[in-house]
């Protein structure tokens, strides 16, 4: 499953699962991540300090006072993965308001893609998405794949501040800005749902890799009166 392992600096191993972005490769990454997480939780392996799964890579950080790259690589090569050890294909529904003040980039998408707002929304809401990874900022999910007709590049000049809760699309992906942050994705709406909750210590992140996500449209009134 891992095609190649190399070192990323002196305190991390870089596991390459392939160059494509697709659900099969990503599921391999997630299986590996879940398996390693279990081993760490049960103290079966020592010295690993962090795991960062992404579309097609897994970075394994370690404590250089406890272990080193050679030992970590050896350990990773000799792990036998049980496939889908912990299936995490939970389904989550996300409400989105796409009124003018929340959907910031319909004009741009309209110009770039020659497609109306209504058509964009129809295509966007009419599909279930897969969560490839979580990160960049706390709890931000990277979801895919969106319909080919609504794929668009990032903004030429990224926004300095994208509002918290913004739902963005670019290329084959959709995401949700869990915090106000700089960013260049095309914003089509905003969710009142708390996607990252720092007060929920056991499970701060709502959407995890492997989850299936669908969006549904809400009115501005529903948005403003949202109560979790």
């Amino acid at each position, binding site marked *: 499953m891992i095609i190649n392992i190399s070192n*990323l600096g002196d305190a991390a191993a870089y596991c390459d699962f392939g160059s494509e972005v697709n659900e099969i490769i990503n599921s391999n990454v997630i299986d590996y991540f879940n398996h390693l997480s279990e081993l760490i939780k049960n103290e079966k392996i020592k010295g690993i300090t962090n795991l*960062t799964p992404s579309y097609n890579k897994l970075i394994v950080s370690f404590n250089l006072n406890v272990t080193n790259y050679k030992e970590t690589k050896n350990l990773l090569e000799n792990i036998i993965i049980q496939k889908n050890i912990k299936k995490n294909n939970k389904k989550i529904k996300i409400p989105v308001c796409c009124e003018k003040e929340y959907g910031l980039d319909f004009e741009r998408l309209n110009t770039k893609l020659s497609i109306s707002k209504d058509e964009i929304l129809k295509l966007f809401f009419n599909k279930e998405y897969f969560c490839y990874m979580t990160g960049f900022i*706390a709890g931000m999910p990277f979801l895919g794949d969106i319909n080919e007709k609504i794929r668009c590049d990032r903004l030429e000049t990224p926004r300095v501040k994208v509002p918290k809760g913004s739902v963005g699309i670019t290329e084959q992906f959709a995401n949700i800005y869990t915090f106000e942050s700089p960013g260049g994705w095309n914003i089509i709406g905003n969710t009142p749902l708390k996607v990252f909750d720092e007060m929920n210590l056991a499970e701060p992140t709502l959407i995890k890799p492997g989850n299936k996500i669908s969006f549904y449209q809400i009115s501005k009134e529903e948005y403003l009166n949202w109560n979790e």
Partner: protein
Amino acid sequence: MNNTFFEILRPGINTTIQDNGRNYMYHEGIAVSGAIDQRNFKFANKLVNNHLNEAVIEFAYQGPLLRLKNNKINFSITGDVIFKINRKNLKVENGICYKNYILEEDDQLDIISTKNTAYGYLSVNGGFEIEKIWNSYSINTKANIGPNKGKKYSIEDKIFIKSLNLQKIKEIKLDYSVSSDNIIRVIKGTNFDYFSSKAQNQFFNQNFSVTKLADRMGIRLSGCKLENIVRTNIKSEGIVKGVIQVPADGNPIIMLSDHGTIGGYPKIGVVISADLDRVGQLIPGSTINFKEVSLEEAQNIFKAYTEDTNKYLNECN
């Protein structure tokens, strides 16, 4: 309940609580955080007889002005820092780093500024009355995680201090000064071959200067524009502290403790673990050179760094 606290009369530029960081959270999008300069963080704790991973106050450039309320404490400041102790009786003492002091009730501690480095540390015997979140005291202002609701300290905030036992503390001094070496050692990154041979050469032979865009997330450099001959974006993937990314404009960015956990720019190199404290302490305007080392050399340098740190820690006994 214990009621000893620092009252913040001036917060300083970026005053937070830090420790050795928060692990196992990268996959949730949460950086490790922790003290930028781990060696000075450990020294600060050792000088007041704390556990080495006790929470400390980290400040950047201009530090805080603090008034101590309701008890006396033992404190120490590490780094390259100018500070004064304004005693209640109006006597003013110039502070010396790497030494411990007693601060009496209603004395003020004025951390004026750091000198040739960015960060300094204030430790208090017994530590602070705060809670760990995900196994760390570190404040992560990007995700609002940690003590003080994950925010940097503001005027009139209070930082409570744990109960302490002053009798135990003896006067300790450490003979240490922050190194001003400008050579930063790196291991080639996973996308090193994305860059033209000219750019590879420039990376290891030219000077780069630290721009004003430097904070706990990372440091943007300027110098020669590094030419990418493959792709200026990669499929987003994980990042670790010390990674040097090069976006399309050709200017390298070094990732520090509060970095985004995922990034989409090619990685030309990674700063070795032993040089991370020094990199984090760089101030805008300073000039650096990158030097290539092998993985094996990096591991040996780290061993020497650890032994050196331990040597200083043992001198405190």
